[in-house]
């Protein structure tokens, strides 16, 4: 079903891109560009980059396209100017286009090198080892889990509240367990956090009495009180391993203890797979990543945007005194 949707969007994107290139009416071109950008946002959703899809919608379609439309309106006087270049210019451009297209298609469809291996990181983060994955199949979790190195894993979504026992859930549970075992993790507690009615800034943390042991095939066992206390203490109120208490307020949360018994908190997004880098899971793109590794580039880009804004305003200011 999602394949049909995907091909639908591909058709939409390509036809509207064609319209942008060939139509004589500049305004039609602008609105065709809108459709193209819209379908590119759809592709991002297919690539699990939904945060990026929304950014694309907001910045590109809502911002830049409106800017272009204003530009078109301002210079609408020149609308009727012939948009078509004379044939003398069309031929070479078309030729270059075809050659380039052939090159790109060869690269993307033929046996291309990077299907052969999956980039993984060694524990010390150094050289990446190559694992022979099946060409087009996305490397399944199981094959990764057995790798001796610490793999970049995807943890399937495991709902900790619904305790669903359906076949799909069992499968998901299985994938989670294998992935965590691969990362050297034994026990999985289920943590439920509810905002404290009395003191708004603190969070009462309920730790389920049951624990799922990952090693012996999901046996559910009640845990002793002091272990419950230790886990609760590990999570409640104090930042655990880099997560501020606010993070803890999420209801669906999975607490896993590593081999060295140090409690680590893994936050599970509910929209399919999330990349897990050394277990300190990151939920999609929106949260700490942006402020984590990519903080400096963001500041630079922010400054650049400001400069562009002021420059544009100065340049387009109409000479009032004229």
């Amino acid at each position, binding site marked *: 079903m*999602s394949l049909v949707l995907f091909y639908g969007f591909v058709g939409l994107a390509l036809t509207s891109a064609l319209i942008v290139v060939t139509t004589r009416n500049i305004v039609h071109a602008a609105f065709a560009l809108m459709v193209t950008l819209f379908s590119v946002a759809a592709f991002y959703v297919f690539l699990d980059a*939904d945060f990026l899809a929304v950014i694309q*919608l907001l910045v590109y379609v809502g*911002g830049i396209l409106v800017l272009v439309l204003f530009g078109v309106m301002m210079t609408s006087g020149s609308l009727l100017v012939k948009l078509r270049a004379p044939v003398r210019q069309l031929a070479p451009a078309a030729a270059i286009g075809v050659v380039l297209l052939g090159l790109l298609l060869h690269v993307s469809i033929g046996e291309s090198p990077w299907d052969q291996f999956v980039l993984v990181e060694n524990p010390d983060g150094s050289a990446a080892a190559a694992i022979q994955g099946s060409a087009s199949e996305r490397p399944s979790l199981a094959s990764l889990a057995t790798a001796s190195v610490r793999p970049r894993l995807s943890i399937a979504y495991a709902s900790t509240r619904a305790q669903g026992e359906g076949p799909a*859930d069992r499968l*998901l549970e299985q994938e989670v367990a294998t992935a965590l075992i691969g990362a050297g993790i034994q026990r999985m507690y289920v943590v439920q956090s509810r905002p404290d009615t009395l003191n708004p800034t603190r969070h009462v943390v309920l730790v389920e009495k049951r624990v799922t042991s990952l090693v012996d095939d999901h046996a559910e066992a009640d845990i002793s009180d002091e272990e419950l206390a230790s886990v609760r203490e590990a999570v409640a109120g104090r930042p655990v391993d880099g997560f501020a208490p606010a993070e803890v*307020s999420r209801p669906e949360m999975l607490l896993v203890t590593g081999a060295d018994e140090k409690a680590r908190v893994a936050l599970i997004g509910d929209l399919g797979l999330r990349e897990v880098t050394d277990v300190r899971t990151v939920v999609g793109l929106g949260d700490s990543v942006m402020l984590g590794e990519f903080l400096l580039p963001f500041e630079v880009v922010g400054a650049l945007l400001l400069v562009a804004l002021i420059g544009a305003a100065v340049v387009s200011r109409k000479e009032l005194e004229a």
Partner: protein
Amino acid sequence: MTHPIEAFAARLRTTLAQTTETLELGGRWPEAIPLEGLIAIMLVLLAAVSVALIAVVPIVLVLMERKISAYFQDRLGPTRVGPWGVLVTLADGIKLLFKEDLIPPQADKMLFRLAPYVVFGSSFAVVAVLPPFRSTVIGNLQLGLFIYLAVSSLVVLGIIMAGWSSNSKYSLFGALRGAAQMVSYEIPLGLAALMIVMTAGTLNMQHLVMDQVGGIHRWYMFRNPFLFIGAGIYFISSIAEVNRTPFDLPEAESEIVAGFHTEYSGLRFAYFFLAEYANVFVVSGICVALFMGGWSSPIPGFQALPGIVWFVGKVLVLVFVMMWIRWTVPRVRVDQLMAVCWKYLLPISFVNIVGTGVVVLLEREGWGAELPIGIGHMMWIAVPVVLLVLGLLAFSGTAPVRPRPTTVGR
């Protein structure tokens, strides 16, 4: 690779379980129901909810607007169609249905037809993000609030398309004015929403609401003074976003007739009309979810009625205030409109963001831990002091009193 389907089915199960749990049917769904069955149920549920919202909401709001404006203006409003004029919107709809759909001569036919659907579509797409129920049936989207901002910026495109394609000076004027107004008021709107994201830490609307459960003191609006001002800014820019008086410049009757939908008639005009009222509902819905505790009840500990009743009640209060403003306040001029946004709303919201940032930081550092109530609430003590200082400043210099005309006896 079927992972989206798996995730979909899993979430489907959880939400179905939640609904049965709230309806006290014991949350265990038998595994017997196949995957396709689950999906079918989900789609039916989704369709039912959205159709209900699409059909019912504008009709109620249009009637509400006409009745309320009538009572403001000391008249009765529609009374003929149905008891107390309740069916007047249906009558309007039918009338518009049978009215002839004119397309102006040199209009850009294709865009002219497309514009209403773009505006109508993007206004209604935001309904998916609203968290009206205790257990979200529609979509537990991780990026709910962000999606709202993105989709609401699409309406601008629809308006420009409508204005450009109807090939008349007035509609082009209205469209450009509308686009400029909505684009510039998106910024304070976004900043106000950003403040909530900073305090709550999540973009998921359902989690925002759950953080406000438990009575009026838990509402973000009253958490700290900065958020209170943020709620004010959000409300003002949402009025501008929906093009209602005092910011209804795109359809300023007295200046440019009816703005971008001057040339529309019949069913196409009905789309614009419905879209406007749906937008009013959606914008106040988001405001309720963000600042006024969504489906939670204002009285601590008393959540007798289901979530939807509280939610719709609060939304109707907000819509009433919007209508109240519409029928008393005159219209702002174009440059004053821009001045309000760029010279007043934006600087205030920047200050607010810094303020909220400080509050969030202090709370995270654990400052508020030992205080009886949160640090945000403690800040309310500072408000009267600030007002006092501002008052002294304002009245220290003699403010220029409006020169009233002197009645010169002869």
